[in-house]
């Protein structure tokens, strides 16, 4: 068993074994000192094994004198040895010295177990006669000098000595109680911290494991998407190729009916190809393999490019298309092709979901981008806001119900089955837009009122002014 284990077992049982561990030496020393100053009685505190823990005394002329004599020195150390090794197990013991003085040995208990003792003395009981014969029997002693020194010894009435020893014992036991309490408290604190730490480490390990698992699943999903779309795309491109060959008359002239059918096949195949490309984009975005080629993109050029692409379908449905770029809008730091994809998607949607005669507005304005990761990590708290560009797509369409708003950026989510069927699309568009915006370090928000219209706000970092 190591020391630590032993301690742990003691903590658990609330036991203490050693006086030296729980009695503060400093308090014991000052207690002895004031005891000595008050009563003039020498005192020492010993551990259960007899080690000295604290003491207060002054050499007495009698003792010093006896120690100059060989026989005196011998008898003195013998007496002291005896006094130190006495182990009183219930009450105090009075141990006599040949000099006529006595030592009073008092046991100390804690939780009813002996844990040490203290020795008061040497002193001469007032009741004792003058120097005893045993003092005179020391070899080559000068009895006159010895007598004179004897009368200098501290004296005490035995009943009073007993009382003050009992009192000192109580005070020492109180010190032991509080020392033990302090020891248990700090041991418990250490053990509790250790135990909490162990628990925390265990939980954190479990979390890391499940995090790894989730990452695996996520990766699997992305590779699956990529693989599937690649595998689908090649046969599909062949179908389109062959259809085009047939249409161009490579296999002979076609009847009107055959032409019609081929046109449908071609149309449907194109649709399918578009869907697969979107899936592939999503897969790439989720596996973070999408390469963005950053450059400074002029927002006016971006919006007018997008506008000219969608204007035919707007015109067809008599929808007014406005483009507004505020003065001082900086260039966007992003991938021109992906930015066009974002805006085209939003503009397409806006037109698709707006009634005949409605309005769609594409806009750009200067803005500030809140720093930090959009996923909410507060690392950005210590950096300044970045200059940004906000791109708007506003329509006067059917709008989106509030409870659906938070989900529209999820893959395969369509506000309702009906609109999907009526307007086509697999519900991938907005999730791709969101991923593309995220990849640019931007944000996308949507506000909408059913029946009044919808506003998409894309905020993207601005390019450096000198770029």
């Amino acid at each position, binding site marked *: 068993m190591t020391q630590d284990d032993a301690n742990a*077992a003691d*903590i*658990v*049982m*609330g036991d203490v074994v050693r006086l030296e561990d729980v009695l503060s030496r400093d308090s014991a020393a000052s207690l002895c000192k004031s005891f000595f100053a008050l009563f003039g009685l020498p005192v020492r505190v010993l551990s259960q094994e007899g080690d000295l823990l604290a003491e207060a005394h002054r050499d007495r002329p009698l003792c010093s004198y006896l120690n100059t004599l060989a026989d005196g020195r011998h008898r003195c150390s013998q007496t002291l040895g005896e006094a130190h090794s006495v182990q009183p197990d219930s009450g105090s013991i009075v141990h006599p010295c040949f000099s006529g003085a006595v030592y009073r040995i008092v046991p100390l208990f804690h*939780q*009813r177990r002996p844990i040490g003792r203290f020795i008061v003395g040497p002193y001469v009981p007032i009741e004792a006669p003058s120097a005893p014969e045993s003092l005179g029997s020391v070899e080559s002693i000068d009895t006159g000098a010895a007598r004179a020194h004897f009368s200098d010894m501290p004296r005490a009435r035995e009943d009073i000595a007993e009382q003050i020893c009992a009192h000192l014992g109580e005070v020492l036991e109180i010190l032991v*109680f509080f020392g*033990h*309490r302090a020891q*248990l*408290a700090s041991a*418990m*604190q250490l*053990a*509790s*911290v250790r*135990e*909490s730490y162990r*628990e925390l480490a265990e939980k954190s390990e479990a979390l890391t494991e499940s995090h790894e698992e989730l990452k695996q699943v996520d990766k699997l999903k992305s590779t699956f998407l990529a693989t599937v779309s690649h595998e689908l795309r090649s046969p599909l491109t062949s179908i389109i190729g062959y259809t085009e060959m047939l249409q161009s008359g490579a296999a002979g002239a076609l009847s009107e009916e055959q032409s019609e059918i081929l046109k449908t096949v071609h149309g449907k195949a194109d649709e399918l190809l578009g869907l697969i490309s979107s899936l592939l984009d999503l897969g790439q975005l989720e596996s973070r393999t999408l390469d963005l080629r950053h450059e400074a993109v002029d927002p006016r050029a971006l919006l007018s490019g997008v506008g000219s692409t969608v204007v035919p379908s707007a015109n067809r449905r008599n929808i007014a298309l406005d483009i507004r770029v505020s003065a001082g809008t900086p260039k966007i730091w992003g991938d021109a092709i992906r930015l066009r994809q974002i805006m085209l998607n939003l503009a397409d949607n806006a037109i698709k979901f707006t009634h005949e005669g409605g309005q769609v507005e594409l806009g750009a304005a200067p803005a500030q981008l809140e720093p930090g990761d959009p996923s909410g990590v507060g690392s950005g708290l210590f950096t300044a806001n970045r200059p940004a560009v906000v791109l708007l797509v506003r329509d006067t369409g059917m709008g989106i119900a509030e409870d659906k708003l938070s989900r529209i950026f999820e893959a395969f989510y369509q506000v309702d089955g009906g609109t999907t069927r009526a307007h086509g699309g697999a519900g991938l568009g907005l999730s791709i837009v969101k991923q593309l915006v995220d990849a640019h370090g931007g944000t996308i928000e949507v506000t909408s009122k059913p029946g009044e219209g919808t506003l998409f706000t894309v905020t993207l970092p601005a390019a450096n002014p000198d770029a």
Partner: protein
Amino acid sequence: MRLDLAAKELTLKLVYYGPALSGKTSNLRAIHRLASSEACGQLMTLAMKNERTLFFDMLPIAIAVGDGFRVRLKLFSVPGQLMHEATRRLVLQAADGIAFIADSRRSEASTNRESFLRLHRNLRHNGVDPARMPMVVQFNKRDLEDIRSDEELETIGARSHEPIYKAVATRGHGVMQTLHGLIRKTWLKLETDQHLEDRVGINASRSMRAIESMLGNRPEWQAP
């Protein structure tokens, strides 16, 4: 349990467990007040300024049971506040018996339950089968309003694995009965597992009598 044959001493650890503020410390205080001072040592509390137990309370009791044998009981209370779970597990270590102190108020039912489930989990965590742990349950604070009725407790008691005691710890009612019940259950298990009588010569019923007479004071339960 710790058996020191040289010193002829048997030490048992009894733990007062339960939700925050259910009256664990109050139980130990009452025992300290009611038990004979010859048997009872000093009550050690490791608490915050507001009296909430921080690490534990400990009340040492020592009783001579005859033939020079001495039984030492170490009564511990755990800190009930949720955040001290690790400390509770430590204090539970090496427990020989447990008194679960519940708050009788209806509003506290789910807190009691939660604490009880955690107790079981902590025991298992310490490698102890809760079903084999001597345990008694005390419904404390019988003096308050809106408590579970005596009839309800009877029904619970009839279904329960553990004997049930009622108490008003602050007045000392039912506290000694709970303790005696706990000691009896603990001793029974000890005798079955360790054969103290055959092996060491400690007579169970004589020891129980010695303990009960030394702890003294068994005011019967009185309705408040």
